[in-house]
Structures are given as structure tokens and as C-alpha cells.
């Protein structure tokens, strides 16, 4: 089974995580919302699958390129 990392695309902080480990998700689903540049920016599923792991917590600062979650395709 292929694993896909959900990679942070912009520096900011994690505002809301909208899924939990084990959830089934579809490509383009919103997984979390970051706050950056005074905007609420969605984290979008790059592929369909099951959320294997969530690597960040709400309120945490995140950087561009950081792994946020792992999806089992």
C-alpha cells in the first residue's frame, strides 16, 4: 500500500484539524485549516485513502515543506 505525505505548503499555524487518524478521505477533501497571512488556508488531501497518522497538533506552528499527516492510499 502506497503512503502519501500531506506536506505543509506555507508557513503558519495549525488552527483546526478536521479529521482523525483512521478516517477515510477523498482527494481534495479539506483535512485541516492553517492560519497564515491573516487567512484561513485549507490543507487539502493530495490523494484518497485512510489517515494513517497526524503529525501536528492544533495551535502548533508549521513550516513550508513540513510533513503534516500520512495517508495510506
Amino acid at each position, binding site marked *: 500500500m502506497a503512503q502519501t505525505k500531506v506536506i505543509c*505548503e*506555507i*508557513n503558519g499555524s495549525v488552527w483546526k484539524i478536521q479529521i482523525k487518524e483512521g478516517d477515510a478521505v477523498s482527494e481534495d477533501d479539506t483535512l485541516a485549516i492553517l492560519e*497564515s*497571512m*491573516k*487567512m*484561513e*488556508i*485549507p490543507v*487539502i488531501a493530495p490523494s484518497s485513502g485512510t489517515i494513517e497518522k497526524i503529525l501536528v497538533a492544533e495551535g502548533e506552528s508549521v513550516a*513550508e*515543506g513540513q510533513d503534516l499527516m500520512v495517508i495510506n492510499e
Partner: protein
Amino acid sequence: MPHDEMIAELKQRRERALAMGGPEKLAKRKAEGHLNARERLDALLDKDSWIESGLFATSHRPEVRDKTPGDGKIGGFGKVDGRPVAVMSNDFTTMGASSSVVNGKKIRHIREVATRSGMPLIMLGESTGARMPDRMGAEGRAILGQDPIEYLRSRESPWASALLGSCYGSSTWYGCLSDFVVMRKGATMAVASGRVTSAAIRQEIDSEELGGWKMHAEHSGLVDAVVDTDEEALLAIKTWLSYLPSHQNEAPPAYDVPEGSQGRGQQILEILPDTPNKVYDVRKIIDLVVDKDSRFELKPRYGKSICTSLARLDGKSIGVIANNPMFKGGAIDVDAMKKATAFIIQCDSFNIPLLFMVDTPGFLIGLEGERRAAPGKIMNWMNALSLVTVPKISLIMRKSYGQAYLNMGGGRNSDEVLAWPTADLGFMAANVGASVLTGVDKDKDPEKYAKMAKDLSRDTAVWGLAQLYEAHTVIDPRDTRETLIRLFEIHRSRHGSGVGKHRLAVWPTTY
């Protein structure tokens, strides 16, 4: 020779050529679910429109003459939706469609006719690269690659490439010179195969990782569209061609306006958030402005904070460059810069007017961008924009900050600047400005900081821009479609025939 013998020989030679690499290899492909080179022509072209050039060509080497029907690359002319096209279809079953002396001559002829006669050139790619031993030694140097303008791209007519298998050598090079590239999942494109690369750098490299669809659609940006099957790839080429003229000296074809295209303005207000901190997917707004279901997005997985789409407005082709706040809040990163510049070049070269839809907090600043030459990319974009001669209209929907204001068509970089009442013209986000410009620390002096931020937000509303006649008008978002139709009509009229000057025609395809 009696006539009947002569005709029998022609028939026999013809059948031999049409059999390609033989029934076994063809059956294997079929079992894998892929079309062969001739089936691809059938799927691409209007029925009975094909006329072949070079059916009886073979390798010039006597020892493989009988094994090289068509010399592995099938060339000729046909029609797509009634319009003439020139096509090269690689026959992978014949020596891996490797590049040879004779099939190089075929490519050259088909390319030259496409350019001279003004018709799109379509390359159906799947090839292994240079043929051995043809390419070996001094003789190989001296007889292959004898065309100094083989890789000159001057956009007299549109070029489209499909990557439909292992693509190395000519399929890769022509893919990278093409205006539109579609890739079938499972195909690969790279300078050399995973096997060759692994041997050369002594590191195990997987071909999919090296040049698979994800790599090209998301990282290299060399591929415009990704599909699942050969048939879908050929359909994507036809769709792309429907927005393009046959050559640079005519306007793109016009179509009937689909029913239901009008009167959808109210829905724009439902998508556009009423607070500036909320984002939205700009593609949903574009879809409501252009003719119904007419939007064809290029590079949707690459540089996503800018969305580049061909579309039709009142039946006529336009190119839309829109910031997408859904990704990176609409901040323009290096990939998005490269994508925008390449799209401007494509549209200007083929007489397709440009629409900028603006909602960006500016260029994404940071270490990564600077390392990847962001300032150079921003200036490439401006340089391209200054050379554009097709009509350009810029619509400021929300944020238009900093230098990006100019790159997105502000400051006389368009023929017309429109704004919605929601437009916000800052130099940078007011809170960043408050610290940078005044040196006030938010934590030490929150009151002063708040006042500074408020001061900096002053005069960023659209009305100042309209009073100074920098925005030519401010419109109700619901009237966007009708306003754009009228304004494009007005600005198109400067070229009676809808043909521009193509000053970007020799600019590269990749940045």
C-alpha cells in the same frame, strides 16, 4: 513487369508496413490495455482523413531493413474536427521507435509542412532514444542530428504532445518544445531511462520516480494534463486544439455560446466570502464568468496558487490567469510564476486575449523562493507582459498587493483594469507593514501597533483607485461576464482580424 504484378507488390509492401512490429508485439500491447501507433491515429483523427507520408521508409541499414516498417515513426496528415493537422505517431513495436537517420528525415518533413502550411503538429510520443548502432562513433555523429533548426521553436503553429509510454529521446525533446503536453498515467519522460540513470550515477532509481506523472504534474511542471488512458490523452489534445487557431496568422475558432451561460452572476456572491480572512476556490468563480463548461485548466497540480485556464467567453477563446486563494492564500510562489509566464507566451503567440483575475497577498517570500531565483522569474513575467499584443483585461477581485499588482496587469499593464467593490490595494498586509515600516513591536506597544496597522489600511479601498482613474471602473461582481464580453469586444477591434504581433513566439516553453 505486368501491371497486376506491380500492383500486387505494392499491396504486399503496404501490408508489411502496416503490420508494424508484428502480431506478437501488437498483441502484448493490446493485453496491457494500450493502443498501438495506428490505433492512436484512428482515435485522434476524423474518419478517413489520414494521408500517410513515408509508409515505405525503413532503416538505411541493410541488416535491419526488413525489421523496420515505417522505420518506427509513422508520419502524415489528417484532420481534427475538420481542421488539417500534421502528426507523428511513434511505433514502439518497431525497434522501440528509436531515432534513426531515415525517421529523422520523416519528422523533419512533417514538421516543415506543418509550419509552412499552417497546421498544428501533434506528436504521439513513446520512444527509446537514439538507435544503436546508428548513433555510434564518428559516423553516428556525422549522419544523425544534421538539422540545426530541429529544436527551434518559433510557434508558427501550435504543437501538442502526448506522452504515452516510455519517452526518451525525441518524444521527450518534442514534448518539451510543445505548447501542450498530456501524459498518460504509467508513462514516463526523462532525459534517460531509470535503468540508464541508475547505471550512470550508481544509485538505484525508479523510472516512475524519475519521470512519472506525479513528478511532472506536481514538480517539474513539464506536463499540462494527466489522464488514465490513451483515448483520454487523444481527446485532451483535441480539446486543447479547439481553443487554438490552426496557425499564428488567424484568430482562434469561435463556437456557439452554450445554453445556461448567462445569468449566473448571483452565484458569484455566494462563493466570494464576505470576510477577507476566508478563502475560496477561484475556479468556481471563473466557471460562472466564462461560457458554461468551457474552462480547460492547464497544469492544475503545479504552482496551484495561480490557476491558468483556456476558456470561451461569448464563444471566443480567452486565457484566464487567476490567483487561487485556496492554495497558499493566493501567494505566488516560483512554480506559479513559471506557469503564468509560460501561459502568457502561449496565449499571445496564438491570438488568445488574456484575462487576469486578481486576489493575491503578493509573491511568496522566503529562502526557498530566493534560492530558486524568484526575482528573476518575476521580471521574466513582467518582460513577457510588456511584449504582449493580444487584448489584456485585469479584474481586481480582492487583494492586489505589492509588485504582484503590476504582474497581474495593474498599472497600465492591461488595456482595462476593472475592480469589484471588494478590491483591496495594499502594498503588503497591513500588520506586516506596521512592523516593517514603523518599527513598532506588536508585543511591546500593542496600541500603537494597532493604530499603525489601521493607518496603513487607509486608502487601500477601491474608491481611491477609481478616483485616480487607475481602475477604469468598479463593477458589481454579478455583472462581470457581461462587462467582460463588451470590453473584450472593444479591445479586440484594434486587430481587425484578431491577430497579434507574436513578439513572444520564440520565447522558451519552460522557465
